[in-house]
Each structure stands twice: as structure tokens, then as C-alpha cells.
């Protein structure tokens, strides 16, 4: 029991550290990647290749003046970024980072917790995340912040439906399980869900862009119209938390996409590789190699997110709503219908 608790505690710490680290370096890579796409160099002064830039930025954030507007609701104003950050971190709990491994005759899962409604939990926590934006934007008592918050929440509500329906179709293909661990294990056979659900993936990806408030759906902070959107009034580390949590969200949604549609820690010819290396089932090395493969996929997805951001202009608000309600929801329903029919005939 004690070993179990210690293992979980250590795993928690490691995973939070990794997601925070990845988020920090995403900010660096975002700027680097953007500058590569724009024929520039990007941050290159702090450390080699500007690698210390995230530290410098974080330090700067801490030392900036902390301003809480007089007319704001102080409690909610502080609660907003906290909630956003906490929910962003909470999502990493159900993600299976690698295969289970055996040590000293015990089975250890490379996942903080494998609840049997993992997918539901994920969607639930993600939708709590929008409260962070909503509360922060509302508590600022600033029209731009409020507009940003309203946009964020209506955008989330609209795109969550399409996302949910796309996920239902995915759950049907993976045999009705809501546990992320099982969804990933199902793809062990070598065929990832993307093959069965290309349309579903596209819908999920677009919705993930919208849910994480990334361009072309960054209407919530839309600096060209709304000053800074929902975080207009925020300063110092509270602003830092908002910006940082967005990158954690991006990391987690990349992880979820890789797990749902691209086999998570599985990769082609994995078993051949393990046999060739003489690794037995349950070895920790298998878990670690799987984690490496998973991580590569996540990084590729993060790059995709950035690539989209630095290519596409922002949607107009009515276009956003049209796309969500008139295109994505019908499309995801069609996808669901086809999946159901196909699954019914194949399973008979």
C-alpha cells in the first residue's frame, strides 16, 4: 500500500513537472517556430538559442507590479486564473503515459489514475476550465474583458457539442469503453483510430483549437479588437498563469488527440522492436520507450497547433458560430451515424 502511495505521489510530481516544463518551453518554441515561419531568428539572447527565455519571462512576470482594479470583485478576480490553472493541470491525471510495468512482482500503471469514465472526466474538467475565463473576465469589471469572456464561453459551448459527438463516435469504434487506458490499448494491434475516424479526428482537432482558444479561434483574447480580451485587466503572475495555463491546455489536448486517434504510446512495429531488444512484457523499458513515442507525437501536435496559428487569420465571430453550429455539428452527426451503422454490421 505504502509503495503504491509513494509511486503515485512521485508520478504526480513528475507528470506535473513535465507538463509545466513542456508548457514553459512551448512558449519558447512558439516564438522560435513563429520566427522560422516568418524568416526571422526569434529569441536568441537568453542562453544558447534563447533556451533560458522562459525563465526570464517567468521572472519578469513575478517582478511586475500587481494591479487589482478597485472596481473589480477581488475574490473572483483572484479565483479566475487559479481555477484556469488548476483545471488545466487536472486534465493530465487520466492520460496514460506508457504501458503498465512490473516491478518486484507488482503491477504499476504509468498513469495517475485509470478511472473508467476517463473521457467524461476529461470533457468535464475542460468545461470547468472556461469558468476560469468567464469569472476572470466578469470580475474585471471591464467591457473588453467581459466581451472576451462572453466570446470564450459561447465558443466553448458551441464547440463542445461537436467535440462530444466526435468522441462518441470514437468510443463506438473502440468498443464502448470510456477509459483512456483501454482506448489506447485497443490500438495496440497496429491500427490507430485515425484510420477508422479521419473525419472524427478533423472535427476533434478543430474543436480542440477552439477549446484551447488558439488561433484561428482566439476570439476570446483577440488583441486587435478587445485590447487583451478576458485578461485585459490582469497583470503580473496572474496574467502569467492565464497565459501559462493556455499552453498546458495545448499540451494536454495534444496528448489527448495523440491518445484518442494516434495510438498514444503505441507505434508501428513496436512489438518487433521490443522482441529484437529482448525486452519482456512488463519491463519498465517498454513503458519508457512507449512514453518516448507518445511524447514525440505530442510534440508534433504542438507544432501543428503553432503552425496553424502562424498561418491562419482569425475567424470573424459570425463565421465562428456558423462553422460551429452549421458545419461541425451536422458533420459530426453524420460521422456518428456512419460509425454506428458500420459498427453494428461489423459486430453482428
Amino acid at each position, binding site marked *: 500500500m505504502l509503495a503504491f502511495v509513494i509511486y503515485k505521489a512521485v508520478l504526480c510530481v513528475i507528470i506535473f513537472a513535465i507538463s509545466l516544463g513542456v508548457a514553459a518551453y512551448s512558449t519558447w518554441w512558439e516564438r522560435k517556430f513563429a520566427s522560422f515561419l516568418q*524568416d526571422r531568428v526569434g529569441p536568441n539572447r537568453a542562453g544558447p538559442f534563447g533556451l533560458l527565455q522562459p525563465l526570464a519571462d517567468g521572472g519578469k512576470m513575478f517582478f511586475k507590479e500587481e494591479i487589482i482594479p478597485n472596481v473589480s470583485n477581488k475574490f473572483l478576480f483572484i479565483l479566475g486564473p487559479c481555477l484556469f490553472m488548476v483545471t488545466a493541470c487536472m486534465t493530465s491525471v487520466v492520460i496514460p503515459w506508457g504501458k503498465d510495468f512490473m516491478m518486484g512482482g507488482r503491477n504499476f500503471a504509468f498513469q495517475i489514475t485509470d478511472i473508467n469514465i476517463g473521457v467524461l472526466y476529461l470533457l468535464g474538467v475542460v468545461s470547468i476550465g472556461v469558468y476560469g475565463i468567464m469569472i476572470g473576465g466578469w470580475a474585471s469589471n471591464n467591457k473588453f474583458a467581459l466581451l472576451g469572456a462572453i466570446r470564450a464561453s459561447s465558443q466553448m459551448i458551441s464547440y463542445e457539442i461537436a467535440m462530444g459527438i466526435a468522441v462518441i463516435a470514437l468510443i463506438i469504434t473502440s468498443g464502448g469503453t470510456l477509459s483512456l487506458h483501454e482506448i489506447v490499448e485497443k490500438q495496440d494491434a497496429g491500427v490507430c483510430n485515425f484510420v477508422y475516424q479521419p473525419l472524427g479526428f478533423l472535427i476533434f482537432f478543430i474543436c480542440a483549437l477552439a477549446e484551447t482558444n488558439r488561433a484561428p479561434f482566439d476570439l476570446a483574447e483577440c488583441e486587435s479588437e478587445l485590447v487583451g480580451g478576458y485578461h485585459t485587466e490582469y497583470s503580473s503572475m496572474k496574467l502569467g498563469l492565464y497565459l501559462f495555463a493556455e499552453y498546458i491546455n495545448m499540451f494536454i489536448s495534444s496528448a489527448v488527440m495523440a491518445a484518442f486517434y494516434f495510438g498514444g504510446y503505441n507505434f508501428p512495429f513496436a512489438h518487433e522492436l521490443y522482441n529484437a531488444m529482448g525486452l519482456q512484457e512488463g519491463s519498465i523499458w517498454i513503458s519508457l520507450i512507449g512514453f518516448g513515442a507518445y511524447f514525440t507525437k505530442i510534440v508534433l501536435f504542438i507544432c501543428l497547433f503553432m503552425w496553424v496559428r502562424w498561418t491562419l487569420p482569425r475567424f470573424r465571430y459570425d463565421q465562428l458560430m456558423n462553422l460551429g453550429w452549421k458545419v461541425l455539428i451536422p458533420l459530426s452527426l453524420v460521422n456518428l451515424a456512419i460509425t454506428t451503422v458500420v459498427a453494428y454490421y461489423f459486430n453482428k
Partner: protein
Amino acid sequence: MALQLTNRSKVVSNKEQSAMEKLYLPAVFKGMSITLSHLFKKSATIRYPEQKRIMAPVYRGQHVLKRDDNGAERCTSCGMCAVACPAEAITMESAERKKGEEHLYREEKYAAKYEINMLRCVFCGLCEEACPKEAIFLTDRIVDTEFEREDFIYGKDKLVEKMTERIDVTKRQTPEVLEFKKTPGLKHNELFDGKKLKEKH
């Protein structure tokens, strides 16, 4: 069609998007392939402190007030430069040369105070052109950055060249300038620049 002054104006098109365009995806992929192609292009950045852009030989940077070969200031405080300056950046106060100051000032009247506000200056070079005494020149030095506005007002301490480290302004002396300097009657050329330039030619 309405009257057009140039042929560049275009009529606004309000046509509906076609079904293909409504899909967005083809356009998205096209855009993304364009940005991807830039990933492999060389960056256009000049990494400034280490790498410096080549300056034009006639670059117009921070001014210098020249001295002649004997170390006397050439400026006679005539105020032509201040009049010519479109940015009104130059102010000066004149004084009369006393006996025994001949080695300090070339002319009988000199500038006791001479200030250029580097924040006002647009580095047009008109002061240089206006100066009858070849006293003021723009050089290829870059004006330093400062924290205070007052520090951008350069007085004689910063403008007048030191005899120990003279500033080379020959690069600004283009053929037209040299031609002008040969004009007979421009006495002030003979002493310093004129002699040297004649040797050169």
C-alpha cells in the same frame, strides 16, 4: 465607371463564397504549405551587435564640428546651419574672439555655445550643405542611446572634434563637394582641406 485618377482602384466584390471556398480546407492547406516553405528559407535578420550592416560611404550620422590643422575651431557662428535646419535642431550663442585666442578660433567671431538636439535632428545634412566654413559635417557614427531627453542635446563638448582623435569626413566629400571646394575665392579652403585635396588630385 466613375472617374478614375489612377487605374489602381478596384471595385469591391461582395460575391458569396463558392461551395469549395466554404470548405475552407483547401485554402487552409494552401496557406499552411506556404508557411511551411518559409521554414526552410534563410532568415533575413542581421544579428546586430555581432553583425553589422554595411553603411553607405556617405552615411549621415552624428555631427562633428571640425577644427583646422592648427587646432582652431572652424565655426564662425554665422547661424547658416540653424537657418537651414528644417527640424530647428541647432541653437548657438556667439562670442567675439579675444586677443591671444587665435589658436583656438579661426575667425573673429566664434560659437561660445553650440547645441544640436539629436532628438529633433532628422539627419538631412542641410546644415553641412549650408555651412560656408566647412565646420560642420555629418559622420558615419551613430548617436548613442540615453535614458534622459536632456542627454540628447549635444553641446560643444560632444560635437567639436579633439585634435588627438580627428574625425575623417573625406567620405562625405563627394565629387560635387570637391568640385565646389575648388571654386576660387573660397579662401577658407586653402588652409586645411584644400591643400590636402589638391595633393590628392
